[in-house]
């Protein structure tokens, strides 16, 4: 398991676009794990199209926070609330965040979310169910309201020696999580052998989530 070794790993992920068929399992797994309220999608699946009729192709693109090596959200953060762990995961200190949303404007991958007021998935006026009550409390104690939030590669799961929820849930094994510094780790091998690339390298953020080509 990455993160349990003598040397600090450089955590990253590989997403194989050949394998992803856009089932949104990662989205729901992330929601179940992190109790994100409506409108907050730390893990997300985008759909894109290319080609001219009738020769068109549709492709799913699962995205999450890419835990960039030079994160622009951290650069613009005025309080230092956004910081990088030793393993390269970018996190938010909820006690320092002033909720200015500058990180959201600075992230070229749209990975930031702020919740101004916790909302239920169900219409106003209905009493919260037990699960919702729990979800609300968890969200308010872990991520918070009025502060910026983001994916942290499931920090608590990793602390307990587990992989991030989206990786675990992927039925197609399209997500591979591991140490990018270790040349023998699965993600490193896949990136090297299959032409892994990062999205929009022109932003200069050096994301640590790599994609394998569609075909």
């Amino acid at each position: 398991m990455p993160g349990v070794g003598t040397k600090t790993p450089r955590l990253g992920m590989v997403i194989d676009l050949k394998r992803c068929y856009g089932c949104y399992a990662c989205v729901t797994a992330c929601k179940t794990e992190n109790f994100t309220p409506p409108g907050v999608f730390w893990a997300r699946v985008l759909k894109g199209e290319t080609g001219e009729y009738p020769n068109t192709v549709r492709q799913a693109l699962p995205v999450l926070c890419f835990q960039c090596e030079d994160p622009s959200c951290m650069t613009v953060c005025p309080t230092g609330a956004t910081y990088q762990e030793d393993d390269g995961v970018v996190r938010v200190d909820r006690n320092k965040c002033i909720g200015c949303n500058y990180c959201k404007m600075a992230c070229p991958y749209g990975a930031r979310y702020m919740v101004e007021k916790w909302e239920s998935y169900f219409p106003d006026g209905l009493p919260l169910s037990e699960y919702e009550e729990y979800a609300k409390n968890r969200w308010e104690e872990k991520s918070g309201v009025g502060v910026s939030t983001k994916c942290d590669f499931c920090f608590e799961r990793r602390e307990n020696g587990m992989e991030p929820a989206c990786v675990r849930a992927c039925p197609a094994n399209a997500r591979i999580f591991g140490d990018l510094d270790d040349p023998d780790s699965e993600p490193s091998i896949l990136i090297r052998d299959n032409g892994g690339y990062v999205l929009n390298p022109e932003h200069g953020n050096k994301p640590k989530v790599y994609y394998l080509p569609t075909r």
Partner: protein
Amino acid sequence: MDTKNFRKKALLQKDWHWEIAIYLFLGGVGAGAYVTGAISSFLGWTDMARWGVLVSFPALAIGLLFLVAHLGNPLRTYLAASKAGTSWISRGVIFFSVFMLVAIIHIIGTLWVELSGTIVLALSVIGIIFALGTMVYTGALLSASKGIPFWRSGIMPILFMFSALATGLAATVVFVYFFGSTPFLAGIAPVVALIAAALILGEAVVVLFFLHAAYRLPESRDSAVTATKKGSFIVGDVLLGLLVPLALMLYVGFGNAGGNTGTLMVIAGILVIIGGLLLRYMVLSVGMITTMYASGFEFKLQNKPEPKSPIGLVPPGNV
């Protein structure tokens, strides 16, 4: 088949809206008015000098209230200056605070306490420097946002600087007209009108360059096109906020206005001020989040779909 009609538009940013527009606008007005006042005092235009300085601090303070009100955690605002090395918000907090301090001292010196000429001169010079810093900051704040290609333009600070100077001068003229000593701008009205005309013309040229540059870049083209289709921008800012006041100021400047000088300049001034606010609002409201590219596909973040199910569940994905 024309595939272009099926191109999806990128997601409009919804987090910085009118509060931030008002803040950026009032910050510009305050800074511009202070620069107007300080330079007028060097030139011996007493009414302009007095009202320029008096307008600056209230404009900044009200703007700051709007900014703080939009924060998710207003009580922690004091932390915002911690990262001046990298963050434009931190730099802005420093510029803004020093500038507000200078402005309030200058106002106290204008209204209640007699300050010596040297102190006023020193205050003016420091004030002008930090006022210019504040103007540049309001633009640089946006141009440092990697997520919004439309804002990521080196022209942004120049655009906001021109707008700040024009709106600041306009605000000063309006206040002098209503509260200054009569006769209105005795003898200097044509000169002031010509300076205003030059600033408005400069702003108009920069707006044109800015939109053109945004249009030339594929990633910000949608934003630029949306901007040119916005009535509040084309009618409110370009026509009423730039072209009409430019014509009025030129008319006054070349000495044809006679008894109507004051009225025309105030109308032009008010139009410039409204135009400045609409410009900030336009820039913020048409900002779209970047598009991602993977293996020849284009992926855009989409607006949240309307809930389809009767119990209000939002389908996941494409959000």
